[in-house]
């Protein structure tokens, strides 16, 4: 009896001290991890807000303005980032989703699947500059084509492909085999089972992965620096050699003096890019939540 009550009393001083030290350490570590992020966010919002609040920010490009002259906006860069992102997604998503379907639905457990999986793992580890130089070598050095927005998109495809393929694979794995069997038992051929039962069941998860993959490549800078020239004017054609994008807009203004209007545009571009990526993340959450509700 006495030993039992002994363990129930509060811990001795030593143990309490250890508890306190560890607790403080954990809190401080969390603070250290969060502090730089908050700092970055606060300074970008503080410095960038005035720029993006002007009406011309969203409706005009920088044609006819200089870093010394106020006015103009980031329309060229916003459109450029969205367009390059869209072209990237149009190429990467079908390949990634169909690749994942191949790996999970058709080649699961085979040597082929392991080989492709291994390749995808390697691909997901390559730095963006290597992807950019690979496309540069292929399209520009070997094939003699010029730099273009499409070339930048192709480099981004190499970066987006493995993330979307992996996330789609995970989502397809989550679809229980019992659903596939149920479909087979109704006399559905395999491809219809995949298209009509497996994909719809995993759809919200696949869509979430696609959006997150897109958000990730939209902030990539190296391929844009190498494969497409920055332009201050709005260009719409994907084959144009000059196109403004938000990351390269930030880069182009990095040497502007603090007192000039061009300086606040750099912060504005950074804030716009963050808002864009955040918007995509929120969209992904919304899609994921919509999918969950349907399950109930």
């Amino acid at each position: 009896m006495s030993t039992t009550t002994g363990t129930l009393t509060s811990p001795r001083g030593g143990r309490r001290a250890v508890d306190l030290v560890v607790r403080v350490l954990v809190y401080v570590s969390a603070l250290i991890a969060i502090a730089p992020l908050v700092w970055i966010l606060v300074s970008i919002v503080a410095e960038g807000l005035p720029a993006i609040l002007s009406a011309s920010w969203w409706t005009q490009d920088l044609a006819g303005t200089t870093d010394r002259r106020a006015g103009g906006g980031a329309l060229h860069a916003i459109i450029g980032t969205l367009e390059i992102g869209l072209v990237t997604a149009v190429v990467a998503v079908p390949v990634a989703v169909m690749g994942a379907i191949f790996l999970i639905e058709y080649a699961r457990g085979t040597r082929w699947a392991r080989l492709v999986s291994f390749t995808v793992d390697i691909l997901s580890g390559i730095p963006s500059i290597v992807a950019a130089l690979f496309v540069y070598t292929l399209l520009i050095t070997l094939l003699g084509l010029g730099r273009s927005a499409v070339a930048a998109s192709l480099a981004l495809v190499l970066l987006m492909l493995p993330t979307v393929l992996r996330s789609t694979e995970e989502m397809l794995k989550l679809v229980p085999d019992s659903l596939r069997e149920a479909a087979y038992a109704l006399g559905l051929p395999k491809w219809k089972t995949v298209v009509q039962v497996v994909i719809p069941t995993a759809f919200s998860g696949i869509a979430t992965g696609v959006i997150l993959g897109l958000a990730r490549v939209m902030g990539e800078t190296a391929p844009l620096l190498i494969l497409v020239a920055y332009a201050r004017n709005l260009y719409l054609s994907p084959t144009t050699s000059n196109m403004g994008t938000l990351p390269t807009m930030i880069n182009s203004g990095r040497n502007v003096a603090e007192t000039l209007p061009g300086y606040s545009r750099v912060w504005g571009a950074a804030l716009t890019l963050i808002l864009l990526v955040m918007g995509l993340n929120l969209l992904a959450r919304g899609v994921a939540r919509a999918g969950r509700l349907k399950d109930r």
Partner: protein
Amino acid sequence: MAKRIEVEDLDVYYGSFQAVAGVSLVVEPRTVTAFIGPSGCGKSTVLRTLNRMHEVIPGAYAKGRVSLDGVDLYGPGVDPVAVRRLVGMVFQRPNPFPSMSIYDNVAAGLKLNGTRNKQELDETVERSLRGANLWNEVKDRLNRAGTSLSGGQQQRLCIARAIAVRPDVILMDEPCSALDPISTLAIEDLIGELKEQYTVVIVTHNMQQASRVSDRTAFFNLEAQGLPGRLIEINDTETIFSNPSLKATEDYITGRFG
């Protein structure tokens, strides 16, 4: 509609492992046949060979003959997809399609195989849900998700989905093992009605269930772990449960082993 199943000298393998050896049996149309036996004796495997569902598992194959009204299901040129349209299946756990409504779950077999006629679909859905004793419970919420139903309702939804494609035979692999007693009773009543139109084969671990719902009972057993399962005895359910011809059957039924 209902058809006669004949199994002759069936062996089933999973890769190099032989799961079932030398099974021969006949299932008459418009009857309920129960497969009983201890776990691992191959009764589910035999059930799955009746609509070639075992082929879904990589490396699985069958030898011997399974015929439906004399047509060999394993004959050259026979499409397993076509076989499964004739021989439907209900699984151990209710598995409605989560991305589909109640209506679409029942209509899935027809819709996904190309039927677009709205009237035909409506009629099939109602007929099938009535056939599965679920119509009155769900007729006002056909657009709700199939997964919003209770477990027992989901299983009846799966039965409705199976009969919607008008199969000749319905296979049931322990259809009540994940259900409470009241839902189980509903399914058992339903099986009694289904046999008026279909040939039903049911795998069950529940002896009372086998004696309640089936006309014929097949007892499977295996001599030891790692050896293939065999059909020990098949007879009228009444005979199997009151006067089995083999000691092993009697021991299993009376609960002395297994």
